[in-house]
C-alpha cells in the first residue's frame, strides 16, 4: 500500500523530513513505487536511477548529522537533456541511446549539492523538438489526466511525472514553450526563467540564444524554492548573469494590491479557443478582486513571433546538431528522427550562402522589434497575463503529420524566448477532464515578482490532485 508521501510538495516534504515524520528513504521509495505502478501506462521515465535509495539513505544520514541543505532528501526527476555523470542521457533520441556522460551539468551538480535525490531521467520530444511529446524516439508520453491526450511538449515526461505524483518536482528546458505548455496541459506549475539566469552548461543544446533552464513543481512556492538552488552565474556558461540573485521566496505572500497587470489585446483574437478565453477572463477577474489594476496593452509584432522563431531556432538547431557524427560518442546521423531532420534541413537552408540575409538576419532584426514591444509594455505595467496554448490538449496523433500545425501551438510562448523574459505557467482549472493554465510574463530578471503574482492567484484555487 502506498503511503501517499509522493503526493507531497517540496515544502511539505521538507517539513516532514525536518520533523522526523518520515525519512528520505520512505519518501523516495513512495515515488519509485508510483513510477513502477504507472510508468508503463504513462511512459514518463526513460531511465531509473538504481542508486536513488542509496542516495536517500545518505541524505537521511546527513540530516542526522545536522545538515539542512535546501533540498536535502527531496526526490526529483530530470529531463533527459540534462547530462548526469554515469547515468544514461539520451536526448530522447536513438542517436544517444547508449550515451553515458562523463560529467554532470551545472544544474544537476547544484541540485545534488543541495541534497536532491535523482529518481531518473524523463521522456520528451527528441532533442526537445516538439509541442506534444510525440517526437520522442522512445514513444510518446501520455497525459495522466486522460491517456488519449498529449501532455504537451517538449518536456512531456517531466510534466507528466509531477502531475502523476511520480516525483516531487522535475527539471525542464524551454526554448519556445517546452516547460510552460506541458505545465498548462497537466495542472502543474512551470517556470521558464530569464535567459541566462540558470546555467546551460552540460544540458544538450537546442537553440543556444533561446534555451532557458527551468522546472515543474506542484506549487508556485516550490518553484521559488527550486529556483533559489538553480539560479546564478556559472563560469562555464558565459551567458549567465552576474547579477546578485535575490531570495525568490521573499515577498511571496505580499499579494498583488496596486499592481498593474497588462492584457495584450493581440492575444485574445480568433485563434484562441473560447473555453480557454473564458478561463483566462476568470483569472483576470480574480486579479481585479485581489486589488490589481488590469490594463489593456498592445504587443504589435505578436503575429510575427512564430515566423521569427521558426527561422532562428532551426538555424541554431542545425548548428548544434552538427556535432553528432557518431565519432566521439553516440550513433551516426542516420539515426535522427523526422523532426530533427526537418529542423536540420530548415536551419541549414536559412543559414546557407545567399539566404542568410533574407532569413536569419531578417529574423534577428524582427527579434529586436518583438523585444522592444515588451520593453514598451513594461513601462506601463508590472507584468502581463497571457494564454499558454491557443487550444486545450489535443488527442495523440492529431498533429503528427502536420508539422506547421504543431508549430503554431507555440504562438503564445515563443515570444518570451525571443525577448529573453521569464514566464510562469500557473494552473487555472479544467476544461472537461483536461487541465488548463495561463502564464505570467514579466521583465527580464523579475522572477520574484512572477512568483508573488502566481502565488496570490494560487491561494484562490483549490489544488486538484490526480486520483490514483
Amino acid at each position, binding site marked *: 500500500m502506498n503511503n501517499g508521501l509522493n503526493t507531497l510538495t517540496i515544502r511539505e516534504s521538507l517539513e516532514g523530513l525536518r520533523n522526523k515524520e518520515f525519512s528520505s528513504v520512505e519518501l523516495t521509495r513512495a515515488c519509485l513505487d508510483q513510477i513502477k505502478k504507472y510508468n508503463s501506462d504513462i511512459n514518463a521515465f526513460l531511465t531509473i536511477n538504481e542508486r536513488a535509495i542509496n542516495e536517500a539513505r545518505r541524505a537521511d544520514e546527513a540530516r542526522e548529522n545536522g545538515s539542512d541543505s535546501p533540498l536535502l532528501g527531496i526526490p526529483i526527476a530530470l529531463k533527459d537533456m540534462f547530462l548526469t555523470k554515469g547515468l544514461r542521457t539520451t536526448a530522447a533520441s536513438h542517436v544517444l541511446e547508449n550515451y553515458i556522460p*562523463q560529467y554532470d551539468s551545472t544544474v544537476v551538480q547544484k541540485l545534488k549539492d543541495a541534497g536532491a535525490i535523482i529518481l531518473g531521467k524523463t521522456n520528451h520530444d527528441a532533442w526537445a523538438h516538439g509541442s506534444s511529446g510525440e517526437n520522442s524516439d522512445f514513444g510518446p508520453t501520455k497525459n495522466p489526466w486522460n491517456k488519449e491526450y498529449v501532455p504537451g511538449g517538449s518536456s512531456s515526461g517531466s510534466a507528466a511525472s509531477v502531475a502523476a505524483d511520480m516525483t516531487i518536482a522535475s527539471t525542464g528546458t524551454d526554448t519556445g514553450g517546452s516547460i510552460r505548455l506541458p505545465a498548462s496541459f497537466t495542472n502543474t506549475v512551470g517556470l521558464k526563467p530569464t535567459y541566462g539566469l540558470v546555467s546551460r552548461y552540460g544540458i544538450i543544446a537546442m537553440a543556444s*540564444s533561446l534555451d532557458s533552464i527551468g522546472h515543474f513543481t506542484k506549487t508556485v512556492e516550490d518553484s521559488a524554492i527550486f529556483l533559489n538552488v538553480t539560479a546564478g552565474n556559472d563560469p562555464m556558461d558565459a551567458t549567465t548573469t552576474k547579477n546578485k540573485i535575490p531570495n525568490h521566496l521573499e515577498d511571496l505572500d505580499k499579494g498583488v494590491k496596486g499592481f498593474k497587470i497588462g492584457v495584450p489585446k493581440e492575444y485574445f483574437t480568433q485563434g484562441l479557443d473560447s473555453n480557454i478565453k473564458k478561463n483566462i477572463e476568470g483569472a483576470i477577474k480574480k486579479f481585479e478582486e485581489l486589488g490589481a489594476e488590469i490594463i489593456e496593452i498592445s504587443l504589435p509584432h505578436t503575429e510575427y513571433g512564430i515566423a521569427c522563431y521558426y527561422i532562428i531556432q532551426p538555424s541554431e538547431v542545425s548548428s548544434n546538431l552538427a556535432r553528432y557524427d557518431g565519432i*566521439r560518442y553516440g550513433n551516426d546521423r*542516420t539515426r535522427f528522427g523526422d523532426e530533427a531532420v526537418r529542423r536540420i534541413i*530548415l536551419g541549414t537552408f536559412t543559414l*546557407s550562402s545567399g539566404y542568410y540575409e533574407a532569413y536569419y538576419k*531578417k529574423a534577428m*532584426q524582427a*527579434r529586436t522589434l518583438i523585444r522592444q514591444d515588451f520593453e514598451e509594455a513594461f513601462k506601463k505595467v508590472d507584468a502581463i497575463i497571457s494564454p499558454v496554448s491557443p487550444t486545450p490538449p489535443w488527442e495523440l496523433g492529431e498533429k503528427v503529420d502536420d508539422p*506547421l500545425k504543431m508549430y503554431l501551438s507555440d504562438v503564445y510562448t515563443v515570444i518570451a524566448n525571443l525577448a529573453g523574459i521569464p514566464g510562469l505557467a500557473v494552473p487555472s482549472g479544467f476544461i472537461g477532464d483536461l487541465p488548463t493554465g495561463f502564464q505570467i510574463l514579466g521583465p527580464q530578471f523579475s522572477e520574484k515578482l512572477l512568483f508573488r503574482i502566481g502565488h496570490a492567484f494560487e491561494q484562490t484555487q483549490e489544488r486538484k490532485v490526480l486520483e490514483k
Partner: protein
Amino acid sequence: MKIDIKHVAKLANLKLKDKDLPKFEKQLNEIVAYVEKLNEVDTKNVEITSQVTGLENIIREDIPAPSLTQEEVLSGTKSKHNGLFKVKAILDSES
C-alpha cells in the same frame, strides 16, 4: 523560395531515403512559405538581437583546472586506437 532538399541534406551531412524526399519537400516548403510572412515587417535600420540580455565581451580568468582523463574522453566511442579517436581519412576519400 523553395528548398533544394537534396543539396541542403548534403550540406548538413544527412543521408535521406529517396522515398522520404517528397514528404520532407512538401512539409518544409509549407514552413518556408509561412516564415516568409516576416517580409511584411519593416526592418530597415533595425539592429539585430544576438545577446538578448545585453552582455558583451565576457571573459574569465585563465586558470588551469583538472579536466577529463583520456580514458573518460574516450569512454563513449566505438572507434579508438592507441588511446586516440580513430576516424576515416578526410582528405583523399571524398567522393
